[in-house]
């Protein structure tokens, strides 16, 4: 049993999201409710996507391409539905909020979008990688039929990238919905399609992992910056937030 590689792949895929969860989400009951609701919405979107498999295709590659494109569209539709739900549920959620840190602040809307995106991302990540991890527990590794042995590793990296992307996409698109900013909505839709279709180059016996991972990382970087500005931050405030704050108490 390749237990060490199993742990390695698991932490590459879910390590960042685990940190995000424990540090920013776990302490607030409202946020956990939002997270699970959005994860559920992602599942429902997958359910609807499965209808695509009823369409007959002659070519597998074509089938995969069209399926992925449609699937992404359906997910974005459900993201919009979730946005509508959150808008309606906002007042109710506020009334049961226990934490005073986020309530009534102007960051609240972004925070809801952020948690919603996290729920989306974690659920999609779990779906895409759990069966891989089950197989990765051993005793064998990929390669008996000439497939690349980087398969598990690249899958884990992709999972991690997609979880992070989903968080930022939600932050951007929720703001876009609020302000009727079509550019932001189009940006999210386009990058989601792009990154998802990029994974198609990994199909087959000569996968191009380096190209697809590099591009995805680049998209992630840009999306992060867009999300940062959307949430009202800038590079300076980001650096400030990363540096340890010195609490100065003045004693007279």
């Amino acid at each position, binding site marked *: *049993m*390749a*237990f*060490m*590689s199993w742990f*390695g792949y698991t932490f590459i895929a879910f390590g960042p999201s685990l940190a995000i969860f424990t540090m920013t989400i776990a302490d607030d009951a409202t946020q956990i409710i939002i997270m699970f609701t959005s994860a559920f919405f992602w599942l429902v979107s*997958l*359910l609807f*996507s*499965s209808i*695509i*498999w009823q369409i007959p295709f002659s070519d*597998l590659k074509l089938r*995969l391409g069209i*399926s*992925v494109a449609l*699937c*992404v569209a359906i*997910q974005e539709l459900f993201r919009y539905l979730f946005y509508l739900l959150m808008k309606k549920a906002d007042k109710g959620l506020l009334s049961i909020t226990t934490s005073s840190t986020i309530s009534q602040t102007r960051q609240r809307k972004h925070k809801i979008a952020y948690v919603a995106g996290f729920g989306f991302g974690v659920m*999609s990540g779990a*779906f*895409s*990688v*759990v*069966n*891989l*991890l*089950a*197989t990765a*527990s*051993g*005793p*064998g*590794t*990929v*390669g*008996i*039929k000439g*497939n690349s*042995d980087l*398969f598990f590793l*690249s*899958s884990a990296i*992709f*999972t991690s990238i*997609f979880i992070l992307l989903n968080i930022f996409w939600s932050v951007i698109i929720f703001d876009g919905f609020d302000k009727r900013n079509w550019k932001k909505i189009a940006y999210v839709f386009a990058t989601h399609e792009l990154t*998802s279709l990029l*994974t*198609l180059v*990994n*199909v*087959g016996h000569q*996968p191009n992992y380096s190209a697809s991972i590099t591009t995805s990382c680049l998209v992630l970087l840009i999306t992060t910056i867009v999300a940062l500005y959307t949430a009202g931050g800038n590079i300076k405030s980001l650096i400030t937030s990363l540096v340890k704050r010195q609490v100065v108490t003045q004693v007279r």
Partner: protein
Amino acid sequence: METNNEKKWNSVMITVLYSRIDYVFGIWYKPKVCYLVIVINEVAHGQTVNKLVYRDITSFNYCVRYTNKNHSIGCTSKYWRNVGVLHLVESFSDMNKLATSKLDIDYVPLMTPKLFNLDNVNFLMSKRKIAGIIILGANDTASDDKEIPDGMYVDNSQYQSCKRIEWNPHGSGMLYKSFDFPIFRVYMEDDIQRLKQCYLKHNMPTSKGELIYPLCAVQMGDFMFTPSNTEVCMRRNIAGSLTSGGFCDPLGDSNVWSTLYPMNNPLKERELIIAAAQLDSISQFYNFAPGTDNDASGFITLLSAAYALGKAKNSNKLTKPKKPIMFAFFQGESWDYIGSSRMDWPANITLKNIGQFLELRQVGLEDEKSLWAHFDPSSGDKSRNDAFFAALVKAGTGAGVNISKASNDLPLPPASVQRFLRKDSGLSGLVLTDHKKNFTNAYYNSHYDSLNQVMDKLSSQGLRDPNSLSKHLTRLATTVARTLYMLASDSNPTPDLSKITADEDMTSELLHCFLQNASCTLFQQVVSNSNAKNLPSSAYPRMVGVSQSPNQVTNLTNHLMMYFTGNQLADVTKQSNCKSNTSDNSAYNYLWFQGQDFKNVCYRGTVYYSPAVSPAFLLKDYKSKNYSTWAESRWQSVDLKMFLVPNPSLQTHVSSDYIRRYYRLCCTCHMCGC
């Protein structure tokens, strides 16, 4: 046994309770819905991930575990299957390389049949951790059986444990060894090449003698539930467990016996004449015991002889002889004489009634251009023995078979008659074989005892023509039939033996049906038309199996005997009428099958089953000195997968071993129910 419904359910239960992680999560990728996850790189050309990692190898025979009163034999893997790196062993130098390898990993040697013998296996086991053995194909090698089961000589200081003669010098004794790893025999050329290629591609050392990961490895699943011996196993069977209905089952089936004419009158002492043969064979691999010379030559000759006598009887060429003739086919004889130790006689027969007992064992070959008659040196009446032998020789001369008497000071070779002589040394027991001293057949109780090797051996002996087996057995069948009739009519009046002749076409058809193709014409004739479709186009396995599941070889033998020695009831046209009337003599049995013209006919005859399960299991005496205590383990699944293993530095042996041990502990506790 795998087809057993209960067992299937058990395996489901086990899988549910101890589901491996990939089995549980396996459900995630089975529905098509899940192909559509966003990151579709897990779906490469529609293959699931498991298929990227593992290649299943399906064409193999495997070795299972049997237990008796003291110990267990055969193979088992660990519950979580055995994993080992492949190493091709085609010569002694390969074996030495394996033995001196510096890597601390488990190996699975891929051995050629020539090198697969007990000495080499012991040598490898002493040097290396062996996770399993795969044998590539089958061309030649030796007999698996060394020990001769204790027959009548169990308490005889002169003959016990084969003191006087080692019957099977070719035997390695491998069959009676217990291995803690699986032994598989891969037989399809494609699979053999796949294994070899994988080894050559990934496991060849570099010029510096180092191995480069990933290495080609196999996983062998062959876990046997049975504990160390039959007594413990039966105790746990009763105790039961959460996960499996049982751990082992007694070996056994049914004997088939019949009489040429109905036996109505009470028998006189030493009157009954029995001709017997055994129906089963064994080898190291489950349900893969061709046993051509070992048992097939004997029981096919006996069937052919029954056909000759039945044909003569039904065409009214024979007068009913004074004494009764009985045919007996014993099952499970390879496992310490299960069938013959449990012969349930009808009420009017006791051992005292048996006069002559002619047994056919290993009669397919010849030794010094002759067959050999073995008598027990210390039993039987001298004059009756001599008359018995004289009748046999006379019949043999008439039919063209040379028969000689084996040395007087030799004990009987392994034979069913030993079980009868052990209880009553008064009867005349004659064992007809193709060996003067040691076995002529080098493949006794081994999977190499095939039709081809017997044919090859016959032609190399310069016997008549290459296709001489059926001719040889036909001549012998004529001899046996005539001997029986001569003995039964007590040479008064002198019978006209020329009317009894075995049919060569029938003998070759029997050989073809039992050894090559069970869906042959003859077998179609003796089963009902609904069953005829189910006959496989390969030979039925002739290992005895467990008593709960019926053995097709036994059933077919029963039907054939009915077909050969019974009468067709022309006036019965419905299956529901094919049974005994109240007015009828209840000694008859009735069978409904297709018959010669495939028209569905009713046959009536004196053919019977008798249970062949060792009395030890009836007496619940699992330490029995007198009876067979062999039981077959149950198992969940048997599989063989080939894949690449990553560098051990990515694997952490320690942690995985701990987890395996933990699971093993849980499963053992549950399964033992103790």
